[in-house]
């Protein structure tokens, strides 16, 4: 019967250690996601969209964002920008991605180019386009993540100060 008690004891230790490890992993990755997400969303709010070119040559929209990762794990940040028509047709899109080591900051610059034909069709009337921003954060070898998507329509200005 001593053997049985030994097995039960080993299983109890394994169970406690596994539970502690799982909750530690959840806590660390949850904390990393929450703080880096909050910091970067604030960075998104304070960053300004830059526009270059004109409808005859094509327009390039650039959004630079300063991102910080005060968390404890590496974070993979992805920013997707989309310019949509009223019928939700994609006029132009741009994607940028950066790996941010724990405790460091990175600048992510995302650009999208609108061709002259599309710029003349859609950008002459700003109320006819919608701007979609999707911000995604993943950590723990990209196994867990958090994202926010915002759509701004009706000719509202792109995010900026």
């Amino acid at each position, binding site marked *: *019967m001593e053997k*049985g*008690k030994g*097995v*039960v004891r080993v*299983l*109890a230790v*394994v*169970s406690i250690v*596994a*539970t502690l490890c*799982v909750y530690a*992993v*959840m806590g660390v990755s949850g904390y990393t996601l929450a703080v880096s997400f909050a910091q970067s969303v604030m960075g998104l709010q304070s960053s300004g969209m830059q526009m270059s070119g004109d409808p005859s040559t094509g327009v390039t929209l650039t959004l630079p964002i300063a991102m910080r990762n005060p968390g404890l794990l590496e974070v993979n940040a992805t920013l997707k920008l989309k310019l949509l028509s009223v019928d939700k047709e994609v006029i132009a899109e741009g994607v940028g991605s950066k790996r941010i080591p724990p405790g460091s900051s990175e600048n992510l610059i995302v650009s999208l180019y609108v061709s002259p034909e599309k710029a003349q069709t859609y950008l002459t009337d700003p109320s006819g386009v919608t701007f979609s921003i999707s911000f995604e954060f*993943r950590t*723990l070898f990209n*196994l*867990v*993540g*958090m*994202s*926010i*998507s*915002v*759509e*701004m329509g009706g000719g509202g200005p792109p995010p900026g100060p």
Partner: protein
Amino acid sequence: MRKIIKAVLSAALYILILVVIPNIGLQYLFQLVPAGSLPRMLIDKMNLQGIVMSISIVGVVLAILSFSANIVEDWSPIKLVSSIASAVVGFYLFLLFIGLGDPSRMGLTQLSIEVATIVWDFRFFIILELLLLGISTMRASVKFYFARKEHLVGR
């Protein structure tokens, strides 16, 4: 007598953590956050009252299971059933937390507020919790097996 005290205390702990504290916390939160503010909109959108109600129900179930598991001997089948049911209900509680009150979301939760949509992808945590559920079930079964064997030999 010691068994009864242990059973009552373990049940009371579940009631305190999952019924009393969340309900008092919710009342306090409603007093703290003014109506019409953005955090209040978020709270209303998340249906926090519904989540607390679900947590309270799970808390009562866990208290009953804990009481029944602690009041009987290790070799009793009631102990085995209660221990496994506790682990399963605990897993359901985790799904409830992760899914913001909706366990069917299985770790992929979406919340829409005005023009913004926030998505949490915590499916990996569900796998980890399933692993813990497996370990708990195995531990309860092995404990029951050896206790039963010892009981039958002793008779």
